[in-house]
């Protein structure tokens, strides 16, 4: 077990810089998820920590040791790959034992450990089989087994769940979380799936184009996204972002809609262009007739275009009539509400659920 520290990490491929000096401190035993769209540099970062990619600039420390020049095997790490990377021509027993190859242990002790790990991961019946005879989930467990048998300082997971089907993914996700709770080791996990990030992480690192956008606990990044990118990326469906401007009296006017009071707007110069963010879960859908009371917060009228039932609730896509043409807004509604495409409705949201971003920079405006 160990801390991992990343200082001004830079990766260059010839002239192209793909990672622009990122900084990250990971505590001992912490589960950190790097998340972002493809090409954001998350996998490159992980591979640099593993020692599979050269470091163009900056430092990686595992514990208090700079590991820049160390070979992967000298870094005391274990890695699980997206396509499992288990050796297809060896039995499961052999595969797991490969993690112990370099360990100086008596054969009996090695055997005991291999069987213990297999027991933990419910792989005991398959020890004599070849990987080809196993399902995807079992193969991924073999890969995890090969990693945990080494008892490394840091576990690195590179999109380990992407090749599994939805049900198995949820199950394996749970197993990884349990594993972390049991072993208490430091884990760095890379994924492009924000749901995985939210469910697994102690802290989430959101990356884009080789920059870190925000670091925080799942609740922090969900409730207080640092910018519009994080706001859109975290949470499903994406946060609605509506253009507007600060009014002369320190309120907020959405383009083509009435002014609303927003505490954060007071700090901004009148006329500043802003984006108002509101999550689908925070929007209430009311049929037109009932919505006459003037509650504080957001009020928006629109027409239902598509309804997607999800079971307990449904997603409602609306065309909100704003000045700059119509804008699509997504809201969540109770399935008991009968909504049909074409219905005129009013959307409301409480003032404390609203987020405010600077339109130019995309940065959140502090409340």
């Amino acid at each position, binding site marked *: 077990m160990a801390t991992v520290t990343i200082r001004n990490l830079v990766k260059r491929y010839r002239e192209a810089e793909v990672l622009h000096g990122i900084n990250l401190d990971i505590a001992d035993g912490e589960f950190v998820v790097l998340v972002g769209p493809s090409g954001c540099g998350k996998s490159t970062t992980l591979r640099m920590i593993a020692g*599979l990619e050269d470091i163009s600039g900056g430092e990686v420390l595992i514990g208090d040791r700079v590991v820049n020049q160390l070979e992967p095997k000298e870094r005391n790490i274990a890695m699980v790959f997206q396509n499992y990377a288990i050796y297809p021509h060896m039995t499961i027993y052999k595969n797991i034992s490969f993690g112990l190859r370099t360990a100086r242990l008596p054969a009996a002790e090695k055997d005991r450990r291999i069987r213990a790990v297999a027991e933990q991961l419910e792989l005991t019946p398959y020890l004599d089989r070849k990987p080809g005879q196993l399902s995807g989930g079992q193969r991924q467990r073999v890969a995890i087994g090969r990693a945990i048998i080494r008892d490394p300082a840091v576990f690195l997971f590179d999109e380990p769940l992407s090749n599994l089907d939805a049900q198995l993914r949820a199950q394996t996700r749970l197993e990884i979380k349990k594993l972390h709770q049991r072993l208490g080791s430091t884990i760095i996990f890379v994924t492009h799936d924000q749901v995985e990030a939210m469910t697994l992480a102690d802290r989430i690192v959101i990356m884009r184009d080789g920059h870190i956008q925000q670091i925080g606990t799942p609740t922090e990044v969900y409730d207080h996204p640092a910018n519009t990118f994080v706001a859109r990326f975290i949470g499903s469906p994406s946060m609605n972002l509506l253009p507007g401007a600060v009014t002369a009296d320190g309120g907020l006017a959405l383009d083509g809609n009435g002014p609303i009071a927003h505490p954060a707007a007071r700090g901004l110069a009148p006329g500043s262009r802003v984006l108002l963010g509101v999550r689908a879960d925070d929007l209430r859908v009311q049929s037109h007739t009932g919505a006459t009371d003037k509650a504080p917060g957001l009020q928006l009228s629109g027409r239902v275009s598509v309804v997607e039932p999800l079971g307990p609730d449904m997603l409602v896509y609306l065309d909100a009539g704003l000045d700059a043409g119509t804008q699509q807004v997504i809201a969540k509604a109770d399935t008991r509400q009968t909504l049909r495409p074409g219905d005129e409705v009013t959307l409301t949201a409480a003032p404390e659920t609203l987020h405010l971003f600077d339109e130019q920079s995309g940065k959140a405006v502090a409340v």
Partner: protein
Amino acid sequence: MSIARNQGTLTRSIAAHAALLTWTVIALFPVFVIVINSVKSRRVIFADPLALPTAETFDLVGYQTVLAQGDFLLYFTNSMIVTMASLFFVLLFGAMAAFALSEYRFRGNLLMGLYLALGIMIPIRLGTVAILQMMVATGLVNTRTALVLVYTAQGLPLAIFILSEFMRNVSSDLKNAGRIDGLSEYTIFFRLVLPLVRPAMATVAVFTLIPIWNDLWFPLILAPGESVKTITLGSQVFIGQFVTNWNAVLAALSLAIVPVLVLYLIFSRHLIRGITAGAVK
């Protein structure tokens, strides 16, 4: 509709088989003629070369002559040693070079690959005189070592070319997993990569093996000595300028086919997989 399509497939299938069968007959015909004539008496070979041996014409005199010549077993052993040793070195060095080319990024990687593949296009026989001079200078004339060296050089370009393509297809995550597990580059090569490109190795083995076994040129020039003669060269003793002992020549050639055939059968199980590996995945 489906009947029409079935007929279409059937016609195509017949056409394909006809083409393949024709090719097989053409390819096997010389071998067939050699084998049947090797068990016929001398007169019948010339009277009716295409006739099958009958009770009257059946004659093993060729084989008797060949086996009675005590050296034949020696020639056989020489061929075997030269072929197996060359094959071993071609596969070992070829695979190692291919691994380096496919696995490591270094300056001049592409140029090095092209340079190593160049030998496919330039026949090694063009350098015969230089090779002979070299062998004379190093005192290797009339040794099996000379042949092994030449054949290893001859086989390497194709081996490197084919194997590096296959090794590029071995998942890099697999090799990286090995690196993280603490394997050395040699262990990764021998324990992970080589077993996974075994079909390609078999393909290369067969393509390398046959020209070496059949070669007459280099044994004739570099190792004509009695003690190091190979089987193809050894068979030539029965071909004279004026008189040729056809029974013996044909018997010797028939016998020479056997070991290649055995080796081919051993490798062929992998060979088919190797050739179709890219196609069907």
